[in-house]
């Protein structure tokens, strides 16, 4: 069992959870993720390790509630335990001093972007970060990002905070001003598709961290597979980061919807059940 030792809400839908997992805290590097399972009947789902304290043996997860499993995690209180937690998984980000990095996070992609931004900064890069969301309430980790970024650009679709516009507009503004050595993009598949097209236009080498559906997270099932440069890759073992310009984002978008209807139904059931319990 992996005990929750701290919990902070960043917004209504985004929560940061610190969990006791000494081995993982020691072994993990930026870009790694864990598979989480809550309860005997829970599903296994992936979350990036947003940070770790080796001495205390604690890892930090930042989760946005989108369906049943993320809600179950967000509902855990300090002192509760995560039933199963395994990692660190995936290939770590290859961090070195490359010059100027353009780090772009959309929606929940901001959470997994944080440890990467931190690592790039610590390796001596100049880091320009663009974070984007639909509106002000959905902007997360602003302070934390600011701490490791030389410049932070905030974009909202409705203009309720930062500048009005999509993540790509923030990226264009940064690219116009600076000589970018490399870009890193993390977010919903649609956002990554267009962010990738933007950097391709400017010939900027770009990595995308892909958030496909996963079951085991150890290369055993192939649920996470996608096409990169015409070849099938398993995101959990070959990734999660890939050359964005080689990724077939259209295929990935389709695959992400594989279980959408079942999951929507499960979520509304879960919400119904839990409201019932609250009233009782």
């Amino acid at each position, binding site marked *: 069992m992996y005990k929750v030792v701290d919990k902070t809400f960043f917004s209504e839908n985004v929560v940061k959870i610190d969990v006791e997992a000494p081995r993982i805290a020691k072994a993990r590097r930026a870009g790694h993720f864990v598979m989480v399972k809550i309860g005997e009947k829970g*599903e296994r789902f992936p979350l990036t390790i947003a940070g770790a304290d080796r001495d205390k043996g604690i890892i930090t997860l930042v989760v946005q509630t989108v369906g049943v499993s993320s809600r179950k995690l967000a509902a855990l209180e300090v002192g509760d335990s995560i039933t199963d937690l395994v990692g660190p*998984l995936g290939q770590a980000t290859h961090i070195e001093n490359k010059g100027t990095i353009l780090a772009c996070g959309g929606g929940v992609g901001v959470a997994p972007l944080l440890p990467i931004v931190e690592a790039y900064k610590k390796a001596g890069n100049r880091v320009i970060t663009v974070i984007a969301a639909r509106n002000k309430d959905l902007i997360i980790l602003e302070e934390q990002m600011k701490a490791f970024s030389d410049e932070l650009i905030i974009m909202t679709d409705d203009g309720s905070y930062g500048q009005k516009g999509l993540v790509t507009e923030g990226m264009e503004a940064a690219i116009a001003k600076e000589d970018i050595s490399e870009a890193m993009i993390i977010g919903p598949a649609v956002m990554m598709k267009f962010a990738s097209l933007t950097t391709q236009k400017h010939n900027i080498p770009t990595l995308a961290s892909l958030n496909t559906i996963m079951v085991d997270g150890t290369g055993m*099932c192939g649920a996470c597979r996608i096409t990169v440069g015409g070849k099938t890759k398993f995101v959990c073992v070959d990734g999660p980061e890939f050359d964005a310009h080689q990724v077939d984002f259209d295929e990935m978008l389709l695959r992400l919807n594989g279980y959408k209807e079942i999951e929507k139904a*499960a979520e509304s059931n879960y919400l119904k059940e839990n409201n019932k319990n609250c009233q009782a």
Partner: protein
Amino acid sequence: MEERDSYLKEERAQQWREDLRKKIKNKERTQQVRVKMNEVDANERIKSYVEVNAGLNVEQAQAEASRCIDCANPTCISGCPVEINIPKFIKRIEQGEFLEAAKTLKETSTLPAVCGRVCPQEKQCEAKCFYTQKLKQDPVAIGYLERFAADYERESGQISVPEVKEKNNIKVACIGSGPAGLTFAGEMAKRGYDVTVFEALHEIGGVLKYGIPEFRLPNNIVDVEINALKKMGVEFETNFIVGKTATIEDLKEEGFQAFFAGSGAGLPRFMGIPGENYIGILSSNEYLTRINLMHAAEQDTDTPVVSGKNVMVIGGGNTAMDSVRTAKRLGADRAMIVYRRSMDEMPARVEEIHHAQEEGIEFMTLTNPIEYLANDKGRVNRVVVQKMELGEPDASGRRRPMPIEGSEETIEVETVVVSVGVSPNPIVPDSLPDLKTTKWGTIAVNEENLQSSIPEMFAGGDIVRGGATVILAMGDGRNAAQSMDQYLKNE
């Protein structure tokens, strides 16, 4: 070898066996017909995950046991990778000493209830039985009898836990909890070692849990065997990936002196044909994992599974049979096997093919998929298949399937399960640059003692053999334990 032979002779010479041999004439013994396994009716069993084989009752088991003539040279044993003393346990059944029969099994096998169910007996012990070899008759049903004795013991509640030598305080690690790892762990615990089994998943048992379905091997049967290991002092750490959660170096620092890699062949292969990444096309590992490990078919679990009315499974092995029969149980009207060779070459256990046929599975042999087509949401809805014919034998000795031009046909499906084989799990080899591997990615070992290029690391099961069988994995676990014990004593 000689030691073993003289041991078998001594055992055979015991009075009770002499008496039994005299009780019935061999001629009478060989005139009996082989017992039929009791089965749940096909129409009934496809409605649930109930175990298909119901086991033998006491009368059936004793009658079958009396067929065995207790050969002076029991060739059957040479067909068993863990060298179970087959005539001895069978004679114990004939005698009515069922718990003694179970004890005999456990002298050399860690998982008798499992092997009695899933061993391809027709290719192993039963193929070497005197009946098959010399009389050209149906062999003694060694597998059924093994299952009978193991089940009897379990149901009696008087499970014998093998004797454990005094602790020697030497720590050894086992990577993976499939049949290879479990057997290794049991054998080392018997010798007094402190054994910890590290398992990547949240459940112990490897393929026995996530792959082979309930209707063939109920999970509780595997759990009973695991509990016996716990009673012997074996420690289990789940959610622990050796090479990721901690490296071999880390474990050495924690005092582990030797390692056994039984990490299996967990990586699914795909065919690389157009459209293979459409939604609704899954590896058999994913399909079976969702159902067996994550219990996706149960109402109150969170893991979803999609399975349609028309399900096509590509392949002809045990995994393909398990997938297609699972599809039937999930409500498929048309559950199809598409296999590129003929019925005769199918690698699955004969019993499983037979059961699948009873359950109304369609077999499209000499057929191969060449392309998948999808609707506008990217969900597979048709498969283009092509007919094949068998040409000259290939390297494996089987006749090579060749496509017949112009024989294409399109079949409607909602789900496709790809079950064309697995590759070795690369996590352990990747984390150890000094570890020698073969061109297939398996760990290279000395065939005699299963030692790898790293002296304190032994390996066995599917990570060495590629996709093989439960009993071969167990044989390796046993052999590796013996070698590791030798190695540590010589250190």
